[in-house]
């Protein structure tokens, strides 16, 4: 588990956010924007390292905090990208911010994807809707260190073409031969030339070697069971399938109790669990 160096120093208040400047804002869809942040303090920024799948607490004083998974790759130094849907007070307040504004960041928190373990293996990533946000970090990481991974398959589904995030990038990737990328929507429009239907339908289009493939899933809660069923049908091992959960959080550091899932806390034990662990967490899937 990676934690910013400062938290390991005695006397540092883990609830105190570090000021970070918004360096870029990209409109992705009607409800989602991609924010690029830069921690202002040089020392803290220098010590900030994370694994894909970890999250930060985004802090806007006067409004509150919200846990947001990091979308950029760990290899991108000095900046953190957050893909944020306007859903509650904090995310709405963030959406109202402009480039140059200052917000607060605490983190990184939680357990991310087992990046070291995954190296040298094939990877199958399945995202639904906003679930692409944490997986985007993993995808970018694999992209940056492409030679470290075997075959990479990405299945990504959304309700309609307007809700496909990072489409500008994925549209280019579709033509690459080092990624197999399949997009699908429930409700297509006139311009849509990719697949139609649930993301689970895409499994019949792909071939994977279950002995050397790691799976990573993130999406709306209802999606997990069906995608895992498909992965199990492909005979993937339960402990090589990784899922990322979203739960209510306040502190992000295992104190406030809100993110309990079964006998674990999503914030410190997750948000990434392997399916074997998740199977043994009550009410998780």
């Amino acid at each position, binding site marked *: 588990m990676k934690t910013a160096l400062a938290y390991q120093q005695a006397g540092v208040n883990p609830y105190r956010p570090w000021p970070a400047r918004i360096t870029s804002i990209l409109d992705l869809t009607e409800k989602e924007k991609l924010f690029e942040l830069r921690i202002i303090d040089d020392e803290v920024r220098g010590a900030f390292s994370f694994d894909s799948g970890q999250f930060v607490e985004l802090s806007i004083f*006067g*409004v509150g905090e919200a846990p947001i998974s990091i979308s950029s790759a760990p290899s991108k130094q000095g900046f953190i990208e957050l893909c944020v849907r306007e859903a*509650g*007070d904090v995310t*709405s*307040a963030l959406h109202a911010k402009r480039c140059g504004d200052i917000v607060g960041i605490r983190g990184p928190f939680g357990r991310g994807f087992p990046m070291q373990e995954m190296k040298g293996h094939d990877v199958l990533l399945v995202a639904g809707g906003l679930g692409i946000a944490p997986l985007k970090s993993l995808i970018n990481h694999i992209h940056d260190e492409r030679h470290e991974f075997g075959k990479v398959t990405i299945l990504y589904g959304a309700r309609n073409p307007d809700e496909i995030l990072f489409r500008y990038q994925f549209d280019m990737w579709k033509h690459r031969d080092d990624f197999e990328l399949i997009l699908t929507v429930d409700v297509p429009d006139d311009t849509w030339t990719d697949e139609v239907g649930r993301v689970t339908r895409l499994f019949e289009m792909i071939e994977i070697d279950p002995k050397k493939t790691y799976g990573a899933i993130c999406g709306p809660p209802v999606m997990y069971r069906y995608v895992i069923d498909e992965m199990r049908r492909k005979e993937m091992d339960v402990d090589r399938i990784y899922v990322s959960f979203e739960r209510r959080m306040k502190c992000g550091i295992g104190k406030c109790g809100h993110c309990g899932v079964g006998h674990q806390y999503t914030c410190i034990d997750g948000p990434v669990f392997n399916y074997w662990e998740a199977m043994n967490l009550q009410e998780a899937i």
Partner: protein
Amino acid sequence: MAPRVVVIGLASDFGCQVQMTNIEDHLLEVLGLIDLTYWQLASSGHMPDEYDVAIVEGAATTQEHLDLLRRVRETAGVVIAIGSCAVTGGISAIANAAGIEEGFALVYGERGRVALGRVAPASVVSVIDVDYIVPGCPIDTDEFLHVLSRALHGLRDKTPRQPMCFACKTRENVCFFEKGQLCLGVVTRSGCHARCVTLGRPCTGCRGIAPEANLPAARIVFEDHGFDAERALSYISLYNTNEEVVL
């Protein structure tokens, strides 16, 4: 531009508007943030045709009130209902308890003159959609300021939804049921820091039934402590006749 705010009083004793004047310490700071274009209690001017935020006290008891509320909803971007009368019907709505006609005859006699356009008292919340509520009789000034602040910043209504026993516990009050007295805190919306109970008086339910109250379970609690459902409901009806409460 500062948001234009109007403060409107319907049928009530204007106690909540008086509470607003009691913000004294901070009133000027708050007034610095808003353009208070009309305040029924404190100004003699006319209500403007355009405004952004409407703060409404009191219950609707005439057709004119109902028309005004609908107009307010169309005009204001944000409507804040303050006080029991506006939120749950409060004292004004007790008139409905015995039936509005019967009640009127009982109070004013057979020959009582009927006010023009009189309607059965109704809370603001039951007539129009409101964006924020500040329940209580009267409102708590801190809570009012907090809600106004949230409204000005466009944050969602966060009025507590659970009953208030938890707050009473944090004040280390001894439970009234242990003393053989009926207390409505067990079903009443929290947010008041259990003020009355802390001052030695059982909760009378002025903040309305908590959306998360478990009424059938509360009925058992009432009965176990020697208060049948009818008695409990008569207590509850002091502030809550506007909605049907089934224990």
